[in-house]
Structures are given as C-alpha cells and as structure tokens.
C-alpha cells in the first residue's frame, strides 16, 4: 500500500500538505527543503515539475518553474530528486504534480515505472481531466500509485462521478482561477465541500489560494486538510540566493520551517 493510502495519512486530522517546485532554486536545495518540511511536521509533499506553459498556475509558480528550468530542472530531474531524497531519509507521502505534456514526452509508462523506482506515492496532472486519464489510471493502479483528482466548485454534476474515482485524496479547488494567494473565498464553499464529503471515500483536501494561518484553520475546519503552494513557493523564492550559499543555507531552511509551523499552529 502506498503511503497516501496508509492509515498514517488516511486517519490523520487537519492534514497539511505543502507544494514545492523541484529544482527551485537548485536541484539540491529543493531536496533540502523537502527534508526540512518533513522536520516541520507536514503530512505529505506535493513535488512540482517545471513546465513552460503551466495553465493552472499563477505567476508565482510559473516563475518558480522558470527558475527551476534555468537551473536544469525537468521531469527527469524531479523523479531523480525524490529518489535521492528517499535515500536521505524522506518518509513523507509524495505526490508528483506535473502537467501532461512532460509526461507524454517522457512516455506515460516510463513515468509510472520511474515513479515506482523513486518510491513516489501519487501523481496529480491538473490538465488531465478524468475523461482523458484512463490509461494513466490503469498503469498507476498496477504500480499502487494514486492518481489524485481535482474537483472544482464548477464541477457540478461531475462532482459525484469524480469523487467515486477518488484515489488517495481529492483535491478541492477552493476558488476559480489559477493558483496564487487570495484575500477571501466564496461563502458557498463549506456547503459544497460538505456535499462532496458525503460521496467521497477518501479525504478531501482544499487548495488554491490558501496563504495564511487563518485560511488554514478555516479550511481545516470544513475540509479534511489543506494544500499550500504559492505562499510557500513565494517565501522560498525570496530566499533564492540564501538557499544556494553554504553559509546561509541553514538559516534559510530554518526560516522555511518556521514559516510552515506558523501556518500549521
């Protein structure tokens, strides 16, 4: 059973899952950050793959992807990075977050077997709606890799269909638009998430725009956990240079840990 399906994750309360971009600011630094997040007490990790045209993401994550690509980041190095992080003691459930084109370019079968080899637990492809995901589901099913689905407030009649396919957890998109920090959220979300939870057989995690401690608490109270991406990626981006210098790296990692612990607390 992969780590997402195990009771550690399935039965946990108030799950907190951060997203970081692999290769940002460098291959090694991103692995350091992943391990630091584990120390900070997060419940799983979303590991982003850089792509030239990240449609579902806002400027913060696109910029992180560009930094990663400039530093040599790719799907290949993202897979390698987790493999290395595992040997360095990463125990968290890991979800590979990638757009579909890098996967097609690499070959779906190749990606799935490389994920198995790197001991990655799940995959989330934001531009692969469930209608197009049959082949991926089949291949991942054989390797015990969870295919995480997105559900949006606009999913309407699709919600039930998608929730029945829920694998590992469901990623509830808290606001229309792209990833990125937001001031406020629609009031209808609580009811919508509540409805979803009645048909879902796996935890429902809320993400997109969650950036403050108040947001985290609010969504942990209505969903089964939260995902925080842009706010953290921005914080990391601001420590870009510090993270790449041997003398300042530890301090920057410490700050990232504090930032996350502040969100969780």
């Amino acid at each position, binding site marked *: 059973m992969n780590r997402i399906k195990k009771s550690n994750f399935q039965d946990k309360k108030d799950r907190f899952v951060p997203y970081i971009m692999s290769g940002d600011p460098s291959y090694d630094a991103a692995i350091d950050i992943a391990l630091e997040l584990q120390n900070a007490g997060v419940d799983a990790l979303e590991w982003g793959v*850089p*792509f*030239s*045209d990240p*449609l*579902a993401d*806002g*400027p913060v994550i*696109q910029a992180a992807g560009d930094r990663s*690509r400039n530093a040599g980041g*790719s*799907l*290949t190095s993202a897979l390698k990075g987790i493999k290395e992080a595992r040997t360095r003691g990463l125990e968290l459930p890991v979800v590979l977050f990638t*757009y*579909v*084109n*890098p*996967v*097609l*370019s*690499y070959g779906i079968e190749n990606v799935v077997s490389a994920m198995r080899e790197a001991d990655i637990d799940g995959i989330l492809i*934001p*531009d*692969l*709606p469930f*209608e*197009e995901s049959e082949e991926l589901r089949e291949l991942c099913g054989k390797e015990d890799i969870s295919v995480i*689905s*997105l*559900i*949006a407030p*606009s*999913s*309407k009649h*699709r919600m039930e269909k*998608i929730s029945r396919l829920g694998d590992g957890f469901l990623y509830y*998109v808290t606001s*229309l*638009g*792209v990833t990125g920090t937001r001031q406020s959220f629609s009031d209808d979300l609580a009811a919508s998430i509540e409805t979803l939870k009645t048909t879902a057989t796996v935890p429902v995690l809320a993400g997109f725009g969650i950036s403050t401690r108040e947001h985290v608490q609010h969504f942990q109270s209505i969903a089964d956990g939260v995902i925080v991406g842009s706010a953290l990626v921005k914080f990391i981006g601001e420590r870009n240079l510090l993270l790449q210098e041997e003398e300042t790296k530890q301090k920057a990692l410490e700050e990232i840990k504090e930032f996350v612990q502040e969100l969780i607390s």
Partner: protein
Amino acid sequence: MKPLLKFCGMMNEKDYKKAVASNTDLIGFIFAPSKRQVDPGEVGQWATETPASPHQKLVGVFVNETVEKIARVVQDAKIDIVQCHGNESVEEIRTVKSFTGVDVYKTIHHNDRALEEMKKYSSVVDGYLIDTKTANAWGGSGIAFDWEAIPSYTKEAARQGVPCLIAGGVKLDNIQALLKYNPLGIDLSSGIETNGEKDERKMSGMTKAVNETYQQPDHLGRFGPFGGKYVPETLMYALEELEKAYEEVKHDENFSAELLREMKEYSGRPTALTKAERLSNHYGGATIYLKREDLNHTGAHKINNALAQGLLAIKMGKKQIIAETGAGQHGVASATVAARFGLSCKVFMGAEDMRRQELNVFRMRLLGAEVIEVHSGGKTLKDATNEAIRHWVANVHDTFYLIGSVVGPHPYPMMVRDFQSVIGEETKSQLAERIGRLPDEVVACVGGGSNAMGMFYPFINDDVALTGVEAAGKGTDTSEHAATLTKGRKGVLHGSLSYLLQDEHGNIIEPYSISAGLDYPGIGPEHAHLRDTGRVKYEAVTDSEAMAALEDLCKLEGILPAIETAHALAYVRKQAPKMNKDDVLLVCLSGRGDKDVHTIQEVLGGDKE
C-alpha cells in the same frame, strides 16, 4: 459521428443472413400487412440459427397493432426494438414499452406538424424514424422527402438524446447527398434491393459509404488520436456548456439566418473567386483561382469565425468576450464583433507582439477593446493564449472565450472549422457555376489552421488533392521555423493533443516565422489527423520563398496578400508549373497584406528604389 444504419424488410433467411454479414447496426422485419411481411416464428428460427453480431439489433415493424400481438411477436421473433409505424398514441407506446420491456421507436411521417409530433413523444420513445407517407401506403413508399428538413428533426432528437433515422428513397446514388445533412441514422429497404431481392453489393456499398464518409471528431472531440479536452477541471463545465450551446445553434435555423445576414450585410460575403490569369500564365502550368477572403471586412477570414462565436456568446447570455491574438488579426476581428454586438472585449497579447504590431494594438483600442499586455514566457501568442485561458477559468460564469483558430480543447477545433467552412462551401458553388467542376488541388497556409480547415473541410470527401503550407522560417534545418507538422512531436498544448514544437523535456519551444500569424508552436488537431491519414499533404516554405511569391501576386494581379497567405502562394509558385493548363489549382487567399507593409518594406526595401 457515424450514422446508425438500418437494413429493413428482410423477407427470407437469405436476406437476413446477408444483413448479418453486412455488419449493419439494425436489421428490420415487417410484421404488418405489406409485400415484405414475414412470419414471427420463422424470424425467430433464422435468428437462432444465424445469431446477429453483439452490436446488431433486430427491429420489428408494426402498424397500429395490439399490444398483446406485439408482445408475442417480440418473444417469437427475438426482437430487440419495436418500431411503431402507425398512429400509435403516446399512451399506447408507453403500454407497449412496459408490456414488452424492449426499446420502442416511433415513426413520424414528414409534414408540417411532424416536429410537434416528435415533441409529444419526448422521454417516452427510444428513437425516431422519419418517413414519407403517401396516400396508398404507410411509409415504405421509397420516396425521398425534402431533406432540407433533416437538421430540424436531428436537432429535436438530439435534444431528447435519442437516435433519429431517415427513411424513404435512399439509394446508392443519393446516399452521399443524404450524408451531407449529417443524419443520426439511415433506414434502407428498397434502396438495397434489386428485382425485389436484397442485394449484397448494394448493402456493402451502403455500409462503405457510411463508414468512409469523413465523420470527425467523435463525441469526445477526438480526430483519430488527436484533439480531446486537456484542461483543468475548473474549465470542464464551461466546455460542456459550450458544447451543448453549439449543438443547439448548429441546428437552429434562426441562428443560421442571423449569421448569414451578418456575413452578407456586414462582412460583405460571398467573397469573390478570382481567376488569376496573368499569374497562371507566368507560372506556365495550372489555371490558378483565388478565393478572396482578403475582401472580408477587417481584411481576412478571421471575421467569419468571430461573427459566429460572437452570436453564440449572445445566445449563451455572456456579456464579455475575451480573445488571444498574435499578429493582432484575430484581436481586431474580435474587437470588431464586440463593437458590432455591444459586448465588452478583452484581448490578450504578448508584450513582444504588442511592440511588433503597434498599429493593430491601436486599432483594437480604437474599436473599444481592452488590450491586456502579457509578460509571461516568451511574451508572444502562446503566452497570450495561456493568459486568456487563465482569465477564462477565473471568470467562466459570464465570459465567453472566442478562440481564433482550430485549436484549443473540444469543441473549439470542430466549431471553428464549421464556422470557417463557409469558405469552402462558397468556393465549391462558385466553381460549379463558373467551370462546372471541382478543382484538382486546393492550397491554404497553416498556422493554427483555421482558413485551411474552412477551405478543406467541404472538399474532404471529394476527389481533390488538398495541401496545407506551413512556415519553414529560415529553413526546417535551422532552429528558426514554425513547421509544426514537419518537425514537431505529439503533445498537449492549450487543451488538445496534436503535434508540437517542444524540447526533450516536453517544454514548448518558441517558433519563428516572418509571418506573425503562422508562428504558433502547435497546430489544430484535425490537421494532425489529416496529415497522419494522408488525406492532406503538408509542405513547408521559407520566409524568402513566401516573399518572392508575395511580390509575384502584387505585380501580376494587383493584390497584396498577407505574408501568411504568401506561404500558400509560394507552394503554388512551385506546384503550378508541374500541372497542365486544364488543371485547376485553387488557393485560399486568406488575408490582405496591408498590415504587413512595414515588414515587407524592411525585407524587400534594400532591393527596391
């Protein structure tokens, strides 16, 4: 989608076996007084001895029969579908359904009240058959009714979510004409008989005609393996909503009439078909004809699609339209339509393109549109499209995304193709009038590919060579080109699977072409399919070849084409001399070159006075 095929009126075991072997979807038997009436017990025996394929269904045809008798026949003859061919009421149909437990189709006789009739049976019957009725017989008279009415029947059936078969007078020599009306199903009886017997050759001819007719995309928006909907979940509902709205207007006469009026009275359609005599003589081969899309309002074919989508936006109750633009042509067309229809309009444009196409930016603003500068990525068309999609995701409830080419997620590639098909349709009838025949070869330039698709699609089932011309920029052996089909790999960009210019890691590569309208790293998914199936040939020509052809057309015909269009002309320059004087080479002159004067001057300026 492929129409459902029904072979009806099997009179003996031999007929029945032929129908099973023909692979038709439905096999029909008449259980009412008729020259083709058969015995239920015998049909049951045939079906036991020669079982139909799993996808084939047996249909029993009844006329005002009692429910008890129908139930007995269903059992004896092993019938899967009951077809009520008489005056059966809604209540009677309901009883037949519950009594027999099988699907029931209702025959509707074509007349002025037929549509009203169909509505009455809504959510009761499982399918329709539209037939002619003559004074002497109930249907089956073998007379074709006015096929112009098919779309309205199809629309009503589609609304009810059931099939609708067209019957009466369908023969091998008119099936192609019928298929043009995109019927959901076809019912054949005398059309597959010779001397009162079912004819195997006619049967296979019919199956072949139906199977070989180009019917793309499928219901998932796939052209072969290409196309589809690769978008975030946040957009799926909007696409479904659009698909539904498009299906509705497609069969809506009022919509078509309104669109036709706008095209005629506002945009100036039909556009001229010009015989390029001096150009033909100069190249010394084929006789060249030019379809003058440059004569459209705003100077290119883009307005055809923009008008249609604008009307659709209004129909869907959307108040805002957004569009992406590279060179600014689609942006100008969208801004124009928004002004015409009183919609608000945002045009997303890469900062780099805005710098290069300053004049078009000014034009769009003058037309009242807001031009939004895009700073992500390479700051060109690809990035403008990303930004437009992102904006759409966030404002999906009141915003209509007016995509300018046959790209993007389903239904856009199909919808834009259909809206641009006016180009090919018009050309076809103009040629019929002028020379009384089809052209030998049709040529169009391809970036995303909308003028080419609009021109090619009406010729796709004809014996006509089709050639798309891509931009080879500084050469396909350099890194500076936009030859997606020649050099790309399969991949997903902006919501559909097609060929793409991409690096080893699947990141999209910025294309290059002297023409701003052709430098897109992808291509419409249908072009990818037509290339792989070999139906359309794709060639690439360089910047300098295009510029040389542009000069030829200016000097010999007094027409300044857009640089995009000049790519198609560059192919003509090479191809025409290889053809005969009697051969007709047709070119889609997609746009005028006034917008390019600055670039042309820069390139050619040095050699000229």
